[in-house]
């Protein structure tokens, strides 16, 4: 992908957040007039890269050059004036202005290049191009999601940029909307504007980009034309998890699951770990509803009927029905932005929703998060969200609500045997833990409440494969101890290996559901993730 004088080039660009490496010595070149796509699993550093290029984030190392000039340390406003425009993943219009005024801000800021009357003409032209002419005088806050995304693009174009950075413009849009967006991107490309698209919706990348870059763990995994990349095995494994590429579908999930458990059985210390860990688990896992709590006999542990919710302007969930029975493990799959996390938040009570959410048959739609936790539903949250100020033990103790002192001590011991590494670091503050250790602590914290159902939300995010293996071994043990689990997972294969049933969300609606083995075979799954060109 070498080009003689690229419009944009980075050399060993890196960004660290404390111990976590977001972007790791990235060197890339974006030729003038090209449309470059950047894809990669969640947490691969895509948004961080956009932040570094636009100037919102200052790099920890390496250089960025734009049009041959070193802009590494240049302030955001100066980069914008040089001609770098960007859009935001979650649209951030100027709320107190009309749509047209939003565009005028960029023109006024860079007055040098745009004169009065022609400015108004240019604005009208841009609005027409982006299909916003009819709402020109409406306040920006009244726009629905797609139009807000178009406003982001139009506003960035008002800068007359040489380089346009599009940050996940496609997420949360329905197919028809994506088609319109692709047409718009192509038109912009035709004006000679160099475009960099960070995207999850692979259809946009496939149909717009002339070159493609795959990021994983902040490093460049692969680069090339969309056709090469999307067909390559390497990319599929990164996306669909270990051994779920085109060729490997034949292997039966149970065999896969069984192989893992066999490994546990064969490996002595793993076995010891497994056997000794099973006894204390009973301390951490409850089977029956909390004594005294109302329950309808025979009702499933958790039942969602026609649940819808929205999130900012995004219609995240539409009429979702879902059931989890006591001791059952349900995998919740779907592309990024399909509404998985929103569903988890609705169940744990921190996001208001329409429709009926019932635990043991009793409606809990209006209960506060704390109340739902008390009913035995724990939520191990996306991004771990442990309390970095508190020590490991304090993190665990916070979750043991209303438990008698001996009971808390027993649960603590059980968690420490489940995750020996935590026992050693009992007194250390949460902040001083690595990603994997923080995830273990988050799981431990969820178990301290002696739940009957735990929602595991993206626990494999940004972790090394061997750590993910150990986590899933623990989940397997918890399953054997009778803990019901709702696993929200990017890594399809791992989730299906342990799940009894699976259901797949697409654009906030239930695409299909069924036994884990059936879902693995279903061709729609692969299309959903990699999106065949239709």
């Amino acid at each position: 992908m070498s080009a003689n004088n690229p419009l944009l080039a980075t050399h060993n660009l890196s960004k660290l957040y404390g111990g976590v490496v977001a972007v790791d010595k990235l060197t890339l070149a974006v030729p003038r007039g090209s449309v470059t796509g950047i894809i990669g699993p969640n947490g691969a550093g895509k948004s961080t890269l956009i932040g570094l290029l636009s100037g919102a984030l200052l790099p920890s190392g390496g250089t960025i050059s734009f049009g041959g000039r070193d802009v590494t340390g240049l302030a955001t406003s100066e980069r914008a004036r040089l001609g770098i425009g960007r859009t935001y993943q979650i649209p951030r219009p100027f709320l107190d202005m009309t749509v047209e005024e939003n565009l005028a801000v960029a023109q006024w800021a860079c007055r040098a290049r745009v004169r009065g009357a022609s400015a108004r003409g240019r604005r009208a032209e841009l609005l027409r191009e982006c299909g916003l002419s009819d709402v020109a005088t409406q306040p920006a806050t009244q726009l629905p999601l797609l139009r807000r995304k178009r406003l982001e693009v139009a506003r960035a174009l008002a800068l007359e940029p040489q380089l346009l950075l599009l940050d996940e413009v496609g997420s949360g849009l329905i197919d028809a909307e994506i088609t319109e967006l692709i047409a718009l991107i192509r038109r912009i490309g035709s004006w000679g504007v160099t475009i960099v698209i960070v995207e999850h919706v692979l259809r946009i990348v496939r149909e717009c980009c002339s070159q493609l870059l795959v990021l994983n763990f902040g490093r460049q995994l692969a680069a090339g034309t969309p056709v090469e990349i999307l067909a390559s095995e390497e990319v599929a494994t990164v996306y669909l998890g270990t051994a779920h590429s085109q060729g490997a579908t034949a292997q039966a999930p149970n065999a896969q699951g069984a192989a893992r458990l066999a490994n546990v059985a064969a490996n002595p210390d793993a076995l010891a770990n497994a056997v000794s860990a099973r006894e204390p688990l009973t301390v951490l896992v409850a089977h029956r509803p909390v004594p005294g709590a109302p329950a309808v006999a025979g009702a499933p542990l958790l039942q969602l009927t026609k649940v819808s919710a929205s999130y900012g302007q995004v219609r995240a969930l539409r009429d979702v029905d879902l059931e989890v029975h006591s001791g059952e493990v349900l995998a919740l799959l779907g592309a990024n932005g399909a509404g998985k996390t929103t569903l988890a938040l609705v169940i744990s009570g921190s996001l208001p929703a329409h429709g009926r959410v019932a635990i043991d048959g009793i409606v809990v739609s209006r209960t506060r998060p704390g109340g739902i936790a008390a009913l035995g539903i724990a939520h191990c949250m996306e991004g771990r969200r442990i309390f970095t100020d508190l020590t490991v033990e304090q993190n665990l103790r916070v979750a043991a609500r209303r438990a008698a002192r001996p009971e808390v001590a027993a649960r603590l011991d059980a968690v420490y045997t489940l995750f020996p590494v935590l026992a050693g670091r009992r007194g250390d503050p949460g902040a001083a833990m690595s990603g994997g250790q923080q995830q273990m602590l988050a799981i431990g914290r969820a178990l301290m409440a002696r739940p009957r159902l735990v929602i595991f939300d993206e626990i494999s995010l940004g972790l090394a494969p061997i750590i993910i293996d150990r986590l899933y071994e623990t989940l397997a043990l918890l399953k054997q101890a009778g803990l019901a689990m709702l696993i929200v997972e990017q890594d399809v294969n791992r989730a299906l290996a342990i799940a009894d049933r699976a259901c797949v969300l697409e654009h906030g609606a239930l695409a299909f559901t069924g036994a884990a083995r059936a879902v693995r075979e279903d061709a729609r799954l692969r299309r959903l993730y990699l999106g065949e060109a239709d």
Partner: protein
Amino acid sequence: MARQLKARSAGFAALILALALLGVAPAVLREYDTQILLRMLLALVLAESWNLLAGYGGLVSLGTSSAVGLGGYVLVGLLNHSILPLPVVILAAALSGAVLAALASPGLLRLRGLYFTVGTLALAEALRLVMINVNQFGGATGLFLNRDPPALGALVWIAVGLLLVTLLVMEFCAHSGVSLLLRAVRDDQDVAAQMGVRPFRVKLAAFAAASALMAAAGGLQALKLGAIEPYGMFGLRWSIDTLAMVVIGGLGTRAGPVIGVVLVMLSGELLADYPEAHLALTGLLMMLAMRFAPRGVAGLLAVLPARWRARTTGA
């Protein structure tokens, strides 16, 4: 756009007419009413410039008293020790406000939200303590104007002139491109930077303009009094009253300051014998405004007719 242009030019005409009316008032009104009018004009200049700062620029400042005090001292100092004519001295007082803003800006303008507010409060209090302690500026005794202040009528004309300048600045800042930059920086400073706006410079321009107008008003107050001392001129009361008037009137609205000034001043005169009750009432009104009418009385006035019409026509 033409319709809007016509509306604006009509607005200007009415503005000039109203101000002319105010200028003529002293000849017509009794002395007491003229004094109230002068106080209102000064308060309106302060309220408009604070509204520019906080309402349009998002810079909630509790430092009005530092600009007012500085303007007062510069005016009296220049009149006592130089032969400069009055208009030039008032301009110098205004410039001193802008210079104060410029000097404080590298530190203060990097602060956001609460920390900017508390920073301005600390700056105002520090300036007050300096003026009290340093005897070269008259210490607690303060300074006496070496000539009789101009007659009330002349003062009203100067105040009207200052108000005209203030309203022109506001009109410019509220309707031109500058208002776009201001509101962009206020709503989302990071995104504004992404659009090529230089947040620090926009905030500095608003801070300097507002401080200059406040300092000019401070100069006028000193001219009216004839004798100034730090406790009065740098007192926290200036910051509190100005903020209360704009918040009650309607933060970030064009009509807010006017309504706020009229409301608070009138209630002040009616409750003249119970000053504590007046201040407590102002505080209470502020709390109610924050809770139920973030857009203040102006916001209510804008919404009520619509709501009332909706209720009556059963829409």
